[in-house]
């Protein structure tokens, strides 16, 4: 079957017995809430944790989409769990934003289907913990379009759902994909899904509101700030964050310090002032903004590259600051991974904007960044 090109999508001709239905989705979401104390706070924030299951039962789920969700549930349980978690967080945000009727239905559909494009990606790529090759990145960047194309073809689904899926990896500052849209070009539903998507990933990784605080600090320009505050309120006071031995954090701090220092030299090479307010060439602006944001977050911890030991001593003396520092460094690592991917994705455009010497400096810095990421 794999070797044949079919005249229409295979799942339009197949039925699965005991597959996913709106009733089973409602049950799965209820189970998810019961099993996670952090989600109970969020689910009950509006007074009734049964609100989402009840809204799910009212959805119209075509056999075609039910089949795809069944494949996700049976063969990609992590993906299915992620879809449910995003739907739960997105529903909470939609209620807080007072979405009702058709807008709420579209939001729930977009949340449930937003990553179904991943069913068409090699699972080896999705499960990879290494850095993606160029071809692998291409599949990752294309998956919102794949999701859009799948949903766009299904009768009875509002086109707004497909659009939200297409935009769910776009970011307000233009740093997202696939099209690098920014600001008002990104619709409300997509903004909600993108925040819910990021929070679900962080929750699944850490189960900690400390990480969400850091996310808010680092990503104020990427996500709708109102939605970020609503998420933080919704997750409430969860503090089961593991703290690394801060002596272990010293090498990380030193490595980050070196990266920022080399970046400063690159700025000088470009003839930019030391302050973060000077403007780099257009295609580089988002990278400079991102690094300025990271530096700003580190400065809030009293980050001084000349006295890192002192910072470690201070954090060791105060467990709350220690939790924050560990969370900040973890988030910083994820931000650096994302930044490296973005630089790689836009490298050819940037190359045209820089001269040979400047390109050499950027390549050297990127190598340093990759070397740091390889130690994680």
């Amino acid at each position: 079957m794999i070797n044949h090109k079919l005249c229409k999508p295979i799942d339009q001709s197949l039925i699965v017995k005991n597959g996913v239905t709106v009733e089973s989705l409602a049950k799965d979401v209820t189970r998810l809430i019961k099993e996670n104390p952090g989600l109970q706070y969020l689910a009950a924030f509006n007074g009734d944790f049964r609100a989402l299951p009840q809204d799910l039962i009212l959805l119209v789920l075509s056999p075609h989409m039910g089949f795809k969700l069944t494949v996700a549930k049976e063969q990609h349980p992590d993906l299915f769990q992620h879809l449910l978690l995003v739907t739960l967080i997105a529903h909470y945000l939609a209620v807080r934003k007072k979405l009702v009727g058709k807008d709420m239905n579209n939001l729930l559909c977009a949340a449930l289907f937003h990553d179904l494009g991943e069913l068409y990606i090699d699972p080896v790529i999705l499960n990879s913990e290494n850095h993606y090759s160029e071809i692998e990145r291409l599949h990752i960047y294309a998956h919102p379009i794949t999701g859009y194309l799948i949903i766009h073809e299904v009768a009875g689904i509002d086109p707004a759902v497909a659009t939200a899926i297409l935009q769910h990896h776009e970011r307000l500052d233009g740093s997202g994909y696939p099209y690098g849209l920014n600001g008002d070009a990104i619709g409300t539903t997509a903004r909600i899904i993108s925040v819910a998507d990021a929070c679900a990933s962080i929750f699944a990784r850490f189960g900690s509101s400390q990480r969400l605080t850091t996310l808010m600090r680092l990503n104020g320009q990427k996500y709708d700030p109102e939605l970020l505050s609503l998420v933080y309120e919704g997750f409430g006071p969860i503090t089961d964050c593991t703290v690394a031995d801060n002596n272990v954090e010293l090498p990380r701090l030193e490595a980050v310090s070196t990266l920022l220092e080399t970046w400063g030299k690159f700025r000088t090479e470009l003839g930019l002032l030391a302050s973060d307010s000077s403007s780099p060439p257009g295609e580089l602006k988002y990278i400079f903004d991102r690094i300025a944001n990271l530096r700003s977050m580190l400065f809030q911890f009293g980050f001084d590259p000349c006295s890192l030991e002192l910072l470690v001593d201070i954090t060791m003396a105060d467990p709350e600051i220690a939790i924050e520092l560990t969370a900040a460094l973890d988030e910083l690592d994820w931000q650096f991974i994302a930044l490296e991917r973005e630089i790689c994705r836009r490298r050819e455009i940037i190359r045209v904007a820089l001269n040979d010497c400047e390109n050499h400096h950027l390549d050297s810095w990127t190598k340093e960044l990759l070397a740091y990421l390889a130690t994680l």
Partner: protein
Amino acid sequence: MANACDTLYKNTAHQSIEEDPHYVTAITEMAGHKEVISSKDIYTTNRIKLITKKHDN
């Protein structure tokens, strides 16, 4: 350049759906532990019938 990237992403997405080995593999594996039934005949683009619709008894 941005448009070239956009086209590349679109082509990749179309290709993923049209030549969907990973999705078909997942369905095949699912059929090993869940009952999957063909509700219609399945044809290739050159009209070769691969699977016949299962008739209700």
